[in-house]
Structure formats: C-alpha cells, structure tokens
C-alpha cells in the first residue's frame, strides 16, 4: 500500500473514531493550522521538515498558567495507524503529553510518511524505540470519553476534540 492509500485509510478510520483530519502540504501548513486552532494555543516544536510553529500564534514557551488557559494544544505525533486513526504521542521532555491532554482541542501533526499500516506495525515501531532505551508515549484514538455519567460524553480529562493535520508531502 502506498503512502497516499494509507493516508486515505487513516482518514476513513479517523472519521469512525471522531477525529477530524485535514491534509495539507508543508508550504501551506501555517494557514491550515490557523484555520483549525482556537486561541489561546500552546504547542511543542514539530520535527517535520519545512514545518514549524515559529511563524504562528501558537505559544511554545510553556508555563502551567498558559497550559491551563489554552484552548488548543498542538503537538507532533511520532506515527499514526491507518486502520484505526490512532496517533502516537511521545512522552517527551518538551511536554507533548500535557499539551495533547489538557486543552479541549488537540491538534496532532503527522507526516504522511509516518502512517503505519496497522496496530501490530505500530507496536513494533514503539518496540524499536524501547530497544534503544526507556521510552514512553500514548496511542490516542479520538477524544477522551466516558459513559459513566449515564450517557456517552466526549471530553473528560482529555480533549473533547482531536484534529489531525496530515502533512502530505513529508
């Protein structure tokens, strides 16, 4: 399966799990992001060639106060899973975990080349990282949810909306 087909499969699966997906190219990343972010927003740097938060209004110097006030958190994701619409967020020192978790909207930025075909491949990929040294992260699939209050509700301790931007040419 080529990267384009995997991205399409990722989009379909994401829709089933209540994630919104927007495809863009590196050159138009800033404007795509601006259309999706609600401000104030916090973010961590994006390790994708030609993609950066430097020229956007997303705040990258994090403090607890800014994190608490942010309506959107922007993070990179290490990889996605085509069959599930899942993204893997690394528990890194720059705070991707809290930024993806506290604000009500999470914008996950994924390079199309980082879409794994399915869960087994994604677990293997994390296994490779683990073999290299202690490593942590979370497979996140859609908004946080509960059925404990007598009905299905999205947005509990984690975000109520998850938006994935797939950078198609990376």
């Amino acid at each position, binding site marked *: 399966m080529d990267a384009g087909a995997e991205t399409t499969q990722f989009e379909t699966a994401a829709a089933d799990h209540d994630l919104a997906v927007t495809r863009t190219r590196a050159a138009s990343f800033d404007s795509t992001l601006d259309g999706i972010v609600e401000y104030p927003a916090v973010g961590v740097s994006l390790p994708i060639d030609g993609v950066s938060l430097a020229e956007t209004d997303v705040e990258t110097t994090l403090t607890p106060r800014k994190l608490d006030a942010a309506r959107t958190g922007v993070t990179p994701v290490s990889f996605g899973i085509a069959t599930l619409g899942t993204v893997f967020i690394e528990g890194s020192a*720059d705070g*991707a975990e809290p930024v993806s978790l506290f604000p009500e909207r999470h914008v996950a930025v994924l390079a199309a080349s980082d879409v794994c075909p399915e869960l087994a491949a994604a677990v293997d990929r994390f*296994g490779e990282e683990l073999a290299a040294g202690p490593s*942590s992260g979370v497979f996140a699939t859609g*908004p946080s949810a509960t059925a404990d*209050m007598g009905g299905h*509700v999205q*947005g509990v301790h*984690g975000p109520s909306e998850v938006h994935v931007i797939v950078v198609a040419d990376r």
Partner: protein
Amino acid sequence: MTEESRRQTAARIRDVMTTDGAAVNEQVRNLNENRYESVAAFDDYESSRDRARKIKERAIEDLPTLIETVTEHVEANGGHVHVAKDGAEANRYVQDVLDEQAGETVVKSKSMTTEEIGLREHLADEGADVFETDLGEFVIQLAEESPSHIVGPSLHKSREEIATLFNEQFDPDSPLETPAELTAFAREYLGERMKEADLGITGANFVLAESGSIVLVTNEGNARKSAVVPDTHVAVAGIEKLIPSIEELHPFLELIARSATGQDIAQYVSLLTPPVKTPTLDFDRPDQPIDASDDDREFHLVLLDNGRTAMREDPHLRETLYCIRCGACLNSCANFQQVGGHAFGGDTYTGGIGTGWVAGIDGPDATAGFNDLCTSCSRCVPNCPVKIDIPWINTVVRERRNHGKTPDAVDHLIDPLVPDQEATGLDRQKRFFGNIDTVLRLGSSLAPVSNWALSLPGVDRLLESTVGIDRRRSLPHLATETFASWWADHQENPDSADTTVHLFVDLYTNYLYPERGKAAVRLLRELDLSVEVTPVLPSGRAPLSQGMISTATEQANEVAEALDSSIAAEEPVLVIEPSDLALFRSEYSKLLPTETAAKIEAGTVGILEYVTPLLKSQSEIESGASGEIVFHSNCQQRTAGFEEPTVEALEALGYDVRTTDVECCGMAGSFGYKSQFYELSMAVGGDLEPQVTDTEVLASGTSCVAQIESLADGDEPPHPVELVEQAWTEHTR
C-alpha cells in the same frame, strides 16, 4: 442451606434487583451486544485469543523470573520495585512513599487491584485526601459503595441517581442534570485535584518485564494525568499482570477493549517506562516555564501477591491469573445481567471470574454469597479473550465450599435418595439435585402414584422446606411408561440396515420425555439405520452442577464403560440431551483419563448433528413443511457449537427458523427450581419471553423446556427431533 437462609438469599437478590437491576441490565446487555458486533468484524479474533492464552500460560509459568527481570529493569531506569505479600504490606509501602514527601493530596486512577487491598481507605484513614479520578470510581467513592462491575464500577447507577448524588454533595449553583453537565462538573472538580496532587496512583493493565514499562488502557485520560502530572507515581499491579516484553503486547491490545466495550481500541493506551521524561507540572508556580531538566521524578512499582502465588500453584485456580479484567464474562452472563456485581460478586471482583479471584484471595468460603449464581451455562467461555474455563473454576470452588461443614441434622430424610460419593456435610438441596437420577428412578417406579402424590396439597410446601424447590415452579410429570420400557417392545430394526448407531438414553428422555427418544428411534429407522440403545445412566451433569465432582467422576466412569464397546466398534453414539453432549465433549476431559475422554469426545454426536447431513443428502424432500418456527438452543449447545445442524435440518424441511439470542433462559440445570433463585430465574426468562411467544417453539435442553413452559404458561416445547421426525415422515413419501 436452611430454608431460612434460602429466604434471606432470595430477599437479598430481590433487593439488588430492585435497586440495581434496571440500570445494570441495560448497560451490561449493551456492552455485550457491542462486543458481539465488534468481535464479528474482527477477523483475527480466534488467533488473537490463542496467542493471548499461550502468552499468559507461559508468563504465569515463568512468573518468578519475570518478577526478577522487571525489578532489574525498573531499578536500572531509576525506579523502585516492591513485591508485597499482602494488601497490608502494599498499603504500608504506599503510605511510606507519601509520608516521605510529606504529601497529602493523592489522585488515583481506577484499579481493581487497589480496590482489592482497600488502598484508598487506608490512605484516607492515615489522613490523606484521596480522589478517584475515573468518573465511575469517583461516583462509587462519593456514594461510599463497592464497585458492581470490574470495568464499569458504577454502572448500576442511573443518571438520575448520579445527579442526585452530585447535587447533594456539591450543591452547585444550578442543579446538574444531563450526562454532559455531570461530566463537565466532575472534570472541573477533579482537574483541580490533579493540579494539587502530590502523588499519583495508577494500576497497570500489563507490565512489560524486559523494559520495565507499564501499560494503562483508559478512555477518559485520567490515568495519563494521574501518572504524569505529580512528580511521584506509584503503580500497583498484581504479579499476574507481568508479560515478558512489548513483543507479547499486541494480541492483548487487540482483545482488551473489544472484549470490554466493543471498541476497536481504547481511547488511550499509555506505554510508560518510568520515570518518564514528560515534565511535571507545578501549578503552585504557574509562571515558571515548564522544563523537564530539573525534575525529580520518582516511580514505584508495587507488585502485589496477596494469594496469587498460591493460586499459581493450584491447578484449578491458576487459570484465574490469565484474566485481563475485561468484564466479558460478566456481560455475557444472564444472571449478572439481572443483578450485577452487588449480588453476583465479592467486594471487588464480580461475575463469573469473581469466584476465582475471591477464592484465591480470601478463600473459597468468601464466595458463599455468589458462587451458586454461576449455573455453568458456559456462555462466558467463548467470550473470554484468554479462554479461561470459568464454569469449571466455579464448580471447583463450589466443591471446596461443599465440604468440611457440619452435617445437616436432618440428612436422614433424604439419605436414601443420595448414594453419592461425597463427604458428609453437603448441603441438602445440592445433594437432592445432584442425585436427581435416584429421585427420578424411585419416582418413576411409582408413577403415576408419584405424579398424584406431587399434586397433593402441602407437598409443594414440603419440597420447598426440605430441599428448596420453589413451590411456584411446576414439576415435570414423570412418564407413565419410560423410554426404556417402550424400547423393550420396539427393538426390531429394518432388515435392510447395515449401519448401527447407538442412542444415549439420558435420564430426562427416559423418565420425563420419552417421546423425544421414540421420535429419534423412528427417524433413524426411516433413514435405514439400525438402532441400539445404551443403558439408562446419569451422565454426571447433575452432580457436577452442584459441585459434587467425586460423584460426577464416578458417573462419568460408568458412562465411559457403557460406551466403550460402541466406540471401539466405531459406531456413533447419538445424544439427544445437549447438556449431556456438551459434558461429553468438554468437562469429561476434566473427570476422566485424557485418552478415555478423547475417545468419548470423538465418538459422541448430537442426534441432529448426525441426522442432518443424511436428511439433506436425500433428494425426495418435498419441502412440504412450512411456517415460522422458533428454536431455543440450550446454552451449552450454543457454546459447544452444535446449534447449527438443528437449524439446517428444519430449514431443509421447509421451515423458516428463528433462533433466540438471549444468553440463557435462566434454568440451566437445577437453578430455576431452587427457591432462593426463583425470582432471578424468572427475570432472566423475562428477556427470553418475547422471543418465545406467538410462534411455535422448539427447545432442545430439558431445563429450557421447563422454563419456557412456565414463561409461556402452558405448553411444553418439543425437542426439535420430534418435529423433524414428524415432518420427515409426512413429507417424504
């Protein structure tokens, strides 16, 4: 059990049905249906189960090594490991961690293991403020109740009850009402607690020994916050949660959410190799830039034994340790669907697998309040992602509970009826039902006098007070002519027959429903087969369902001897009663030597399983039969996978067949006759009732026949072989 204690049990079950029943029923059946849908859409279900099972078998085998390995790796990463022999030791350890940092606020994500040891209560007693952050667990904490389900601890509570609880406890500006309002309030309230927390406690769904990683599976995101926001994280996990490495994780991730809620994957699967690099958040210093470089993260893994090592050494309880706590056995249990874990479970672990956990941790007697709610219907078995034989665990624990008690003072009343192999002290009701063969034999030798005697005024009360048969339940009538005596006059086989089959004559066919046996003989002869019948023997099913394993073993040996020559001659043994066939094919492997059990498994076949291909291969069916018909298959028959041939036979004859889809009718074995369970049994039947009214119904199991007869208020549904024989005779000439 005395009449008085049976009455108390009935009252307790009735109470729980009144308070929890409706909410539990709706939620649990919903989860069950979601699981069926999700599993049906997952092609690798069976292969994932096989892999998961093998990994667990191996991990429990290698447990001491895995404990060493994980200790080495967690310590190499900079964390601490403590193996606690019991709950008190685990609680003390966590208390020490909290004391060392002079902390007082603790956030905790849902963990049945911490529930098992009462960690929250312990820390609170020592002065800490402990907040459950999973919303279901938070509700339970506020209500000061115990969980009613291992996945959804508060699913017995309706939205209205939760709203009332929140409004009373927190007195918000405007009363909370909708699920969204309640969730928003809890999120806000618990969000503040997480920001203040000094210590985060989680459980672990899996622990990966070779990297020292823990895996947390949640939907809400509370475990993520509890684990990483405070600078100290304690994970409490039973030692059975260890698997070797990330390489073994995949099948469990495919199975756990599917089995629990029918999701492809849970919202969040955290893989943490602590101490994690994620920076801690100090909301007391809100403008200090977040930076992981000066963090002083601490991680403690508490591995809890609390009886698990002994369970590992116990050949029957060992399988319990394979459990991944998905709750599928609860959701697929007809009795659990009506009462939930407040009647069907201990303080922490509930439902089918609850017996294994509670017996392992607190001893078999601690299961006395709920173990008998497992009817061995077996519907949980194909739904367990790690293939645990849950009914067998329940049977073994029942046997252990049965013995070692003071003999019943009035045992002599029923002693003549109970030539069993059991030690003294067995509950009289259990002995009665476990020796149903003797009851039927003696009753039958006096029929019709016994039928007349049973209808005498006061006899129903006597049966209720002595052996606990509910007086509202009508008893089946003993046949005036048994199958065996009919057979004595009908032994001539077709001259042209060159194949011989043997009909296994079960107790019920012989004493209660000889018509189904006669129909079987006629049908087989129509198909040009020579029929022999086996001696009337109890299969062992009745004592087994009472936990009378020695008696069941004795009976299994007699059956093995009786079938030996037919099986040796490779002549098939055809079985009419599905609960017996399921027994031959599964439980006999636990009662008999492996080779003998394998021979019986291979040599026995369901009557319609055998006949259907023959019917279909004969071209002269005119499809004259028509109309809609409902077939209620026995639960064990569905589990063992021999429901389909009956449907095919009926369809081949021209019927439009609908099968029932509730898990169980509520009678399985003697369950529905027992006075303490009568109301529960009828409530379970209530789910079946709409499916078996207004259309002609067939039922294969003897117990199911009795239940459907009571539900439909009258007619006894025939066994499918009776209709097949009739339709075949009418439409093939």
